[in-house]
């Protein structure tokens, strides 16, 4: 609900109202996400104080980048009432094609151009999604299931299936480039990579688009009710093309960062992780039916999933339990959001 207005106006409204937890949760459902995140961190920290080491936190930050970029794209589409399951295929397509292109044909290409081309390539594939959704008038779930197979099939049939183990040097260097580096107590070198910066920047840009531009308002308007929005003069075509293009661009960017960070390009990677990304966005308070949610909530949702995935091992919970925990959190949060809705 809350991101459907500008967030500073929202703050003002909250002050003038009588304060209650129930009201807060209804207006800002990501409060629940934050509570769950803090709760799980406290529990893990009590069970194993090693969790609070800088190295763990940096691991979490590093692991959030790719999923966070995906989630921002999914959030924008969800806010407009659509859904996308093809973004992992777009990421796999652009990352692998770019790696092959740089390695075999243009070895000297500067990394910034590589990243830019991957992003634009992703945007292009996303725009295909947007045009199909708009002109076929088919639900976006069906269209993107189709294009997920299409993009991935094209990648594996025509571009290659070989696992590239040694990256072009500029890509590997980008993956290792440090933002912050220090030595831990046991003498190991801990690095927060430079590419981590991409996530806060992308989050800020997404927030700005959604809250400060007419496009952002149009996205929420379409998510609220597409027929009414179109009657009021919002162009559905522009919104569809923009939101899928934007999500595609973020997916392309995420793909290339995934390659650089892992220092290898596996064409079979990424596809299959869509559901956990969508889960993160929904855990962040965005309703699957559209028109609601915040960027902050989305990032909190991603952190929650990443923390569950990476730290449960620290307290001796087998990794196979991650799914149980994620699943019960989703049900818990969803049930909470729904009862809040009914009580209003």
């Amino acid at each position, binding site marked *: *609900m809350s991101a*459907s207005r500008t967030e500073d106006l929202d703050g003002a409204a909250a002050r*003038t109202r009588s304060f209650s937890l129930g009201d807060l949760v209804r207006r800002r459902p990501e409060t629940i996400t934050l509570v769950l995140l803090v709760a799980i961190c406290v529990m893990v920290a009590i069970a194993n104080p090693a969790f609070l080491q800088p190295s763990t936190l940096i691991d979490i930050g590093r692991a959030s980048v790719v999923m966070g970029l995906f989630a921002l794209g999914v959030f924008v589409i969800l806010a407009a009432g659509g859904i996308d399951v093809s973004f992992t295929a777009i990421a796999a397509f652009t990352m692998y094609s770019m790696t092959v292109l740089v390695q075999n044909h243009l070895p000297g290409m500067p990394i910034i151009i590589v990243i830019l081309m991957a992003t634009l390539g992703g945007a292009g594939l996303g725009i295909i999604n947007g045009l199909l959704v708009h002109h076929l008038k088919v639900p976006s779930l069906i269209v993107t299931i189709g294009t997920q197979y299409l993009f991935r099939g094209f990648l594996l049939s025509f571009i290659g299936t070989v696992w590239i183990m040694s990256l072009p040097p500029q890509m590997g260097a980008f993956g290792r480039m440090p933002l912050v580096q220090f030595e831990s107590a046991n003498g190991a070198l801990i690095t927060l990579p430079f590419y981590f910066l991409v996530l806060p920047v992308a989050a800020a840009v997404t927030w700005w688009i959604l809250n400060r531009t007419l496009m952002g308002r149009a996205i929420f308007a379409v998510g609220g009710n597409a027929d009414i929005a179109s009657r*009021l003069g919002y162009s559905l075509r522009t919104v569809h093309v923009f939101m899928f293009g934007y999500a595609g661009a973020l997916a392309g960017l995420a793909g290339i960062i995934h390659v650089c960070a892992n220092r290898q390009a596996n064409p079979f990677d990424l596809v299959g992780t869509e559901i956990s990304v969508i889960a993160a966005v929904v855990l962040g308070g965005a309703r699957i039916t559209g028109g609601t949610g915040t960027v902050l909530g989305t990032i909190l949702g991603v952190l929650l999933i990443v923390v569950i995935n990476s730290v449960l091992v620290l307290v001796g919970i087998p990794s196979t339990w991650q799914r149980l925990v994620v699943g019960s959190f989703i049900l818990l949060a969803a049930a909470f959001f729904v009862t809040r809705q009914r009580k209003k």
Partner: protein
Amino acid sequence: MAAQADQARHSKVFLELRNIQKWFGGVHALRGIDLTLRSGEAYHLLGENGCGKSTVIKIMSGAHAPTSGEIVLGGETFTSLTPIQSLRAGIETVYQDLSLLPNLTVAENVALNEQLVDANGRLARLFDRKRLKETAQKALAAAGLPTDRAFLNTIVSDLPLASRQLVAIARAIATRAKLVIMDEPTTSLTRREVDNLIRVVERLRSENVAVLFVTHKLDECYRIGGHAVVFRDGQCVAQGPIETYTKKELAELMTGRSIDAQRYRTGKPFDAGLLEVDHLAADGVRDVSFSLKKGEILGITGLADSGRNELAMALAGVAPASEGTVTMEGQAVSVRSPAEAIARGIGYVPEDRLAEGLFLDKSIFENEIALIASRLSNRFGVVDRDEGRRIAARLSEEMRLNTRDLDLPVGALSGGNQQRVLIGRWLSITPKLLVLHGPTVGVDVGSKDTIYRVIQALAEGGMGLVIVSDDLPELLQNADRILVMNNGRVVAEMDAEQATEDQLYKAMLTAATESVQ
């Protein structure tokens, strides 16, 4: 009044429709509409449901393109308008559904469109939050709503319906509107809010804005004054100052049909009572009591928001009643769900047969036996198809379906035949009471005749029938008695043989504005 008419002649023409035709598939919705709207005037577009009123306003607001004809707007001629063109020209519409975005704030709903229109619909623009707030405050003040921050930032879905209506009106006057179209603006307003609305309209007219009302509430039209424009069957049948027409004349112009159509009802109700409804209340229905004898046909009518639909659904257990008792043959019964209603012998043919009743891709046979599948099946759950086919064939014959092929999917049938399948299905459980909700909506004339004959045959056999409909001739031709509902209550009961369409129409309309929520 004469001075006003004089002024109308002199004020500038704002919008002109010339010979507008509109086809929806095979339906000729508008048959050559000519209409001139002048600045500073008020117009009341009157007509029955489906006469083309909504289509005309959608053409003005750019939601529909006419099939042929011209729209002259500010001296320029168009064959059709886009929503942005229409908005830029200053045409603002308050739709019946209000067209508010439920997830946005009051301020955004009221004032965001100004910026969208200024940007000519292009979205790659920053939006000006300060201007949003200023415009919203001005418009809300003009509509008599609060302008504090808390209200500006309230999510529209959190507002009560009456406030939403005023927010929609505030949006229409937020920009430099030249024509404000209001589609049934007063349906959910209380008396006090209607007075407020009338003040808003007077202010708009004094600022040389044209106002076009689409409404059923004639009393309000007279209070506001201006021009009456009467539509019937996609044609404009009368135009002129509203005070020159009486209510009766307007009602006759709207209905237009010759009232001397033949009556299907020839039988008489049995002496034995069947149904007693005592002080029934449900969402939208308040304190309704009536009784029904065996073999009697009771018509219930009223405007769309009168509670007639809710009453039908309460009787059938679709939307159960919250208070009151229902007695069938002397026994108090509870109908909390459709299944319970069926068990008590109450059948219900819903208004929207496609969404609520039929399985379109399934065969006639499967649709007809849907209610008795469990009775037809043996203890292993296997359905006795032969017995089922015999029953389905008998029902199809009784309902005079135009096909003998029971395996034809229902979706392939005409609307009239689909309705017959649906009624036939209910006959399979031989109900004591059948509630028919809009039994001939979207049905051709021939099928109407068949359905009416079936209805009469059922009553002759002792079944009690309740027909809920806004098709007044239908009730006059078929029912024994007609109840008229208004604002959740029964406001009139008439003998169908004596009553006229005008009387019914008047009963439906009067008191509508006098009600206090």
